């Protein structure tokens, strides 16, 4: 359930610093810091500060509770969204669940794979089943969201 990015990338940066303390400063500055935060709506956003993109997905807990996802509706690329806007829906046979923008910005990309393979949301909700990427206009909004620990505690 934990993202590969979250688990691996900061650690490797740390190892690099320890092993080669005299790495030129420019290289250190070009590293990307990826943070992942969660919402009460059972969504997660993974923010890459190098690109300014937040990748939005539903959590593994959400997919396992919803059951088979059979339809996903995503926003149009280029749409400007405010945090909290309804931007799409994830539907199982029995229920339609609205998806809200967890952060503000512009929709930069949507996961086209989901139209043909909505089941990706069940198989790999937080990676291959990502929903959309938002070019964040207010990166500080990440601070208002929950850490993984806080999220797990919120429903467990």
């Amino acid at each position, binding site marked *: 359930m934990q993202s590969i990015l979250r688990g691996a990338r900061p650690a490797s940066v740390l190892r690099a610093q320890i092993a080669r303390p005299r790495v030129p400063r420019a290289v250190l500055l070009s590293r990307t810091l990826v943070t992942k935060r969660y919402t009460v709506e059972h969504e997660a956003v993974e923010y890459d500060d190098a690109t300014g993109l937040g990748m939005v997905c539903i959590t593994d807990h959400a997919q396992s509770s*919803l*059951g088979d996802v059979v339809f996903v509706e995503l926003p149009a690329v280029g749409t400007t969204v405010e945090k909290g806007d309804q931007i799409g829906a994830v539907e199982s*046979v029995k229920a*339609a669940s609205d998806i809200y923008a967890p952060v503000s910005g512009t929709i930069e990309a949507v996961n086209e794979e989901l139209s043909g393979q909505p089941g990706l949301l069940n198989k790999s909700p937080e990676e291959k089943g990502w929903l959309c990427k938002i070019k964040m206009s207010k990166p500080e909004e990440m601070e208002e969201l929950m850490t993984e620990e806080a999220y797990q505690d919120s429903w467990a």
Partner: protein
Amino acid sequence: MALSPLLRASVGLRRAPLHASLRRLATSAPSELKRTGLHDFHVENGAKMVPFAGYSMPLAYGDVGQVASHQHVRTDAGLFDVGHMVQSNFRGPTATGFLEWLTPSSLSSLKPYTSTLSVLLNERGGIIDDTVITKHAEDAFYVVTNAGRRERDLEWFKQRLAEWNAGEHAANGPVEMEVLENWGLVALQGPKAASYLQALTAYDLTQLTFGKSAFVPIEGFNLHVARGGYTGEDGFEISIPPAHTVEVATLLSKSPVQLTGLGARDSLRLEAGMCLYGSDLDEDTTPLEAGLGWVIGKGRKESGVFIGAEGLRAQLKEGVPKRRVGLVVQGAPARGGAKIFDPATEQQIGTVTSGIPSPTLGQNIAMGYIKSGGGWQKKGAQVAVEVRGKMREAKVVGMPFVPAKYFRGV
């Protein structure tokens, strides 16, 4: 038969934020919920229990997804616990007359050990509940009504019985109602249901065609078995005394039969074009509007004496203001509550009452009501349905969406 209105609240057929959907799907059910005799059996079989019509009921079992569970009933067989529904016996010399007063059905011409879908009507002709009535004899009927309408139905029966028994009808003895409290009721459904059940009984099930019932010896139990169901497949509804419910359910749920929950039950009934009380039927809807005019018995339309007859006759004369239709919706599934529009004028012409992405057809199917006049109720009519603020193309189609496969004889 129909599920209750609480499916909408507990299982979530409408649109909702993800967190609200998940909350409704939570496994822990409030302790005040009633339990059928199979509650512990479901839990032992890995069921996800949800509140439904005041009962804790299985939504799904183990890792079997709703689509797989649904398909299994279409290709093999599934067993459903419908023990939350209300089973009653009506007995007395004028039982036929009493039930013909409460429903528009021709029960006097119904053959013994035959069932019919019927409706309880209020004074205006609105549907109090839909029900399956089985006639055993002129003076003995077995009636199954919806769990979600339990209080309303039982109070209605009680008051009407008191009225009936106080009048001249009861000169030769009263009509009495007995509710079969805590009795089990299971539905074995699917193309393999008959061969599975036949292996457990010496009774020749080819004699038991769709709509018939019989007391069938099954491994030492003598059980009331009615051929029919709520999936559009061949199948049986089996009534079981409280002491034997778990044993019989165990007997009826071995491979290839799979235990099947409420989730698949709802998608199967919708594909079969069957109504869910509380979603597709209510007290402001008449059987004529609901496309259930066929439940009104021959000869009873014009002159039958039954509660609600005047309301129905007025509609027969002047036409219905709205009519239930089937829809195939493009782009996104329309759920209950979605508005239906005339695409030309963008005027609202109706409302969707149930809708799903159909697992069998791979299309978004829905049923709803469209107002009369304008020709939108005709098969093939193009309408629009609003989903998440966008107009989606939709076409009016006939129901059932998936053809019924009832057993009508060899």
